[in-house]
């Protein structure tokens, strides 16, 4: 999302990252120039509120689409850092309006399952009315 931040900002919105761990990794990203807040939610209240689920061990191992995404990222030199959280936690992307109401959400169903950036920006432009 860091690479898309300028487009998000141009749409009149901000960005926030939320993860279960880890403070030192978040701080390293901030020190590396991530231009938006990174927050930690160890108790997974945000995940529960957004209905972001977990993946069973069997589902994790047999998630061939997820492993394919992982391999594509690996080949693009997008290497995964040190694992510091529960493997079973899934990911997601959500858009909230200015009051914090969630108006759109993508709940990941496997490893590295994120929506295409164009889809997120299109929804964002609908919300903010920007072109």
């Amino acid at each position, binding site marked *: *999302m860091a690479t898309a931040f300028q487009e*998000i900002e141009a*749409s*009149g*919105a*901000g*960005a*926030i*990252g*939320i*993860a*279960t*761990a*880890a*403070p*030192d*990794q*978040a*701080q*390293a*990203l*901030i020190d590396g120039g991530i231009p938006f*807040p*990174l*927050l*930690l*939610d*160890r108790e997974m*209240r*945000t*995940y529960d*509120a*957004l209905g*972001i689920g977990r993946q069973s061990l069997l589902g994790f191992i047999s998630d061939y689409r997820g492993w394919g995404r992982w391999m594509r990222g690996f080949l693009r030199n997008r290497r*995964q*850092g*040190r694992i*510091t*959280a*529960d*493997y079973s*936690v*899934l*990911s*997601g*992307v*959500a*858009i*909230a*309006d*200015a*009051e*914090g*109401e*969630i*108006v759109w959400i993508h709940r990941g169903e496997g490893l590295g399952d*994120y929506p295409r950036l164009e889809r997120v920006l299109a929804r*964002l432009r609908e*919300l*903010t009315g920007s072109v």
Partner: protein
Amino acid sequence: MTNISNIEVVTPSGELVRIGDCMSGPTVFTILRYYG
């Protein structure tokens, strides 16, 4: 609809904050397992 602005989280430095305190308008949230 779900509102997440009152959920309490922490910053990397350990400060307790509400998500809404970190928002200044419409916001895209990226939800990750961890920052790796």
